[in-house]
């Protein structure tokens, strides 16, 4: 499963890009819809440009997402210009003429109500509401203003209208259309008939951010998983075969070829991962290679020393025992070997304490070896590498500012040598000499 999740990530990232783009220009459609939406409202809008402006402002408040500055500004500019044009129209043209230019139903209503309702804004709203409701009746309620038919109360009118954008959402029509072609998915029919499961929760609630690919895909998968569980239970209950038996072979959705490719890709990925890990390990080893080498050499030297000691001991014992009895020689020899065996380690340690030669060469030599190196490659030893050139710990801006960069950064300036005199002075002094 973790593999799966990491794999899903890549395509999903790609997937988000268009959405981001969209969000940047989220504002635009509303502007467009405003344009579109204004047309039917014209009589009111043109009679009172003030109200129109208010509406625009409100609409901007309602916007679903707070967006970047730039598009907003653009939009404001755009809407302003629209208002301007509207105002002009309103000034130029008589209200009557305007109404005539409108659709029939509105025309009828307006002739009745126009004179009385022209002044007050609140009246305007009610009037428009009335118009729209009449529209509904006349046009067979094909086109409703969004949300108006839902929020029918008088108190909410102002709010509703300020919100209203003239997009079509004919709920009644949708429901009748649905009724006309819907399949029966109620409990009466067996589940196997439709095999559809509607989740109880909205998936969007469990998505913290739409741009978060992993979380989003996880939410989708959870929805599907839940459905799969429920569906499996229901189908089993109905006795519908669910699990494919292992000996059932049939054509699959994705060909074997594709699956082979996928497999190859997986393997490739795994090997690449392994190789990179190996390489890293090797690099680390290389870093400590020197130390390891030194340690190994020391160990070898120690081993050699130990054997030499053993031999010496053997010789000594032999010399001691060799005088009195020649017959015992073999036994002695055997004894020594046993001795060696028994206290080999302890003896060597003891000797190491008093013997000078325990730690290889003397301490001074060792330190020098450590400092200057002993054996091994000397080439490129002092050349810079990425780490050393990146190390600017020795740099101090203050020292640089105080001048005398040539003196080296670390060197404290106790005294300044007298600066070189100027050319004229030098010449003069040369003349004196």
């Amino acid at each position: 499963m973790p593999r799966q999740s990491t794999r899903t990530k890549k395509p999903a990232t790609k997937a988000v890009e268009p959405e981001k783009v969209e969000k940047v220009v989220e504002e635009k459609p509303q502007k467009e819809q405003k344009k579109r939406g204004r047309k039917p409202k014209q009589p009111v809008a043109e009679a009172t440009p003030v109200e129109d402006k208010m509406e625009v402002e409100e609409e901007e408040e309602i916007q679903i997402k707070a967006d970047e500055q730039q598009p907003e500004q653009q939009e404001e500019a755009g809407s302003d210009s629209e208002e301007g044009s509207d105002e002009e129209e309103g000034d130029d043209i008589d209200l009557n003429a305007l109404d005539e230019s409108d659709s029939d139903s509105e025309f009828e209503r307006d002739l009745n109500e126009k004179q009385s309702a022209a002044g007050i804004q609140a009246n305007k709203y009610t009037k428009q509401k009335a118009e729209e409701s009449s529209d509904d009746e006349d046009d067979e309620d094909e086109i409703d203003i969004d949300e108006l038919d839902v929020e029918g109360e008088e108190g909410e009118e102002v709010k509703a209208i300020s919100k209203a954008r003239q997009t079509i959402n004919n709920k009644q029509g949708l429901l009748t259309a649905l009724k006309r072609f819907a399949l029966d998915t109620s409990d009466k029919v067996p589940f196997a008939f439709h095999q559809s499961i509607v989740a109880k929760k909205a998936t969007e609630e469990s998505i913290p951010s739409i741009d978060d690919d992993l979380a989003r895909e996880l939410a989708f998968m959870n929805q599907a998983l839940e459905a799969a569980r429920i569906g499996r239970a229901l189908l089993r209950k109905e006795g519908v075969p669910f699990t494919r038996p292992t000996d059932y072979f049939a054509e699959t959705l994705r060909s074997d070829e594709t699956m082979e490719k996928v497999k190859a890709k997986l393997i490739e990925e795994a090997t690449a991962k392994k190789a990179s890990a190996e390489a890293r390990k090797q690099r680390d080893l290389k870093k400590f290679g020197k130390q390891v080498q030194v340690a190994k050499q020391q160990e070898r030297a120690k081993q050699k020393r130990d054997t030499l000691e053993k031999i010496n001991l053997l010789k000594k014992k032999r010399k001691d025992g060799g005088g009195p009895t020649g017959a015992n020689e073999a036994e002695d020899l055997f004894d020594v070997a046993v001795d060696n065996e028994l206290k080999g380690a302890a003896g060597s340690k003891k000797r190491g304490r008093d013997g000078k030669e325990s730690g290889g060469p003397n301490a001074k030599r060792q330190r020098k070896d450590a400092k200057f190196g002993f054996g091994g490659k000397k080439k490129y030893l002092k050349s810079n590498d990425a780490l050393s050139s990146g190390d600017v710990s020795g740099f101090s801006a203050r020292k640089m500012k105080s001048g005398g960069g040539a003196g080296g950064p670390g060197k404290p300036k106790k005294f300044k040598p007298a600066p070189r005199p100027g050319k004229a002075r030098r010449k003069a002094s040369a003349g004196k000499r």
Partner: protein
Amino acid sequence: MAAVYKSLSKSAKKVEDHEENENNNAPNGGFRKNKQRVLILSSRGVTYRHRHLLNDLAAMLPHGRKDVKFDSKSKLYQLNELAELYNCNNVMFFEARKGKDLYMWFSKVPNGPTVKFHAQNLHTMEELHFTGNCLKGSRPLLSFDGTFESEPHYRVIKEVFLQMFGVPQGARKSKPFIDHVMSFSIADGKIWVRNYEIREVEKVKGEKDSEGNDIPAADDKSSKKRKGAPNAELKDTDVSLVEIGPRFVLTPIVIQEGAFGGPIIYENKRFISPNQVRSELRKAKATRHNARTEQVKERLGKLETITAQAKKEKDLLDTKELFA
């Protein structure tokens, strides 16, 4: 014409309770047979990606019939006749525009409705290297987001999906086992479509709580059995999902009452045409240039006025002026 007739007759007959009517829809108390055939075709000018997606979908729908590219983008009503010719009652039409934008029309053919989507983020099965696989033509489980029940237009869309993507029982080329889920989720005002393989795995003994909690109480005895005796023989498996692909995201644009025609009964106010998106991007880029050119213009203008002024002032002391 049928759509017009329906819309006329609708006003006379008020619909109060939708649920009731829906239930009455099934004749004689029984449910009507689910007979679906989907005509799958694209317009000219689809890109390879669109084409591959179409092929993927066609492979998933054993009740589908793939047809050659349709020549026209304006006379979509001709698709009705085409569908009739092929005995299809669903049309899935891929309309490509400008060689990059894909619009998908899902239509119930004889008398609607038609839903138009804008498809984005298309990823075909091939390019998504997922490990999932399933039988070709097995009936999918369709998993819908809870949001699909919230709004009428979503309900319509859900029903369309149900009939198009749901393989009808006993379809000719369908296979008897169920091994994949198609999920439709709504997020950000868009419909996200995913396809997963159902894999049955040995259940880990410790995690039996996670199983069966979400299953509604009314449904099954098998889950109860599992709960009661976790070591029951065959049923002691859990499901896990592995994605198969393809992936795509649909933004509903418009729902028409008829099949490729008729009055518009829904229009998405949040939809922004990709053309507009692109033009905005271009404009945003252009503003930078415009600002710069304006600056240059301003500077030149200033320079001009300054030189003109200087000329004027100089003129008073000019030799020509003095000794005129």
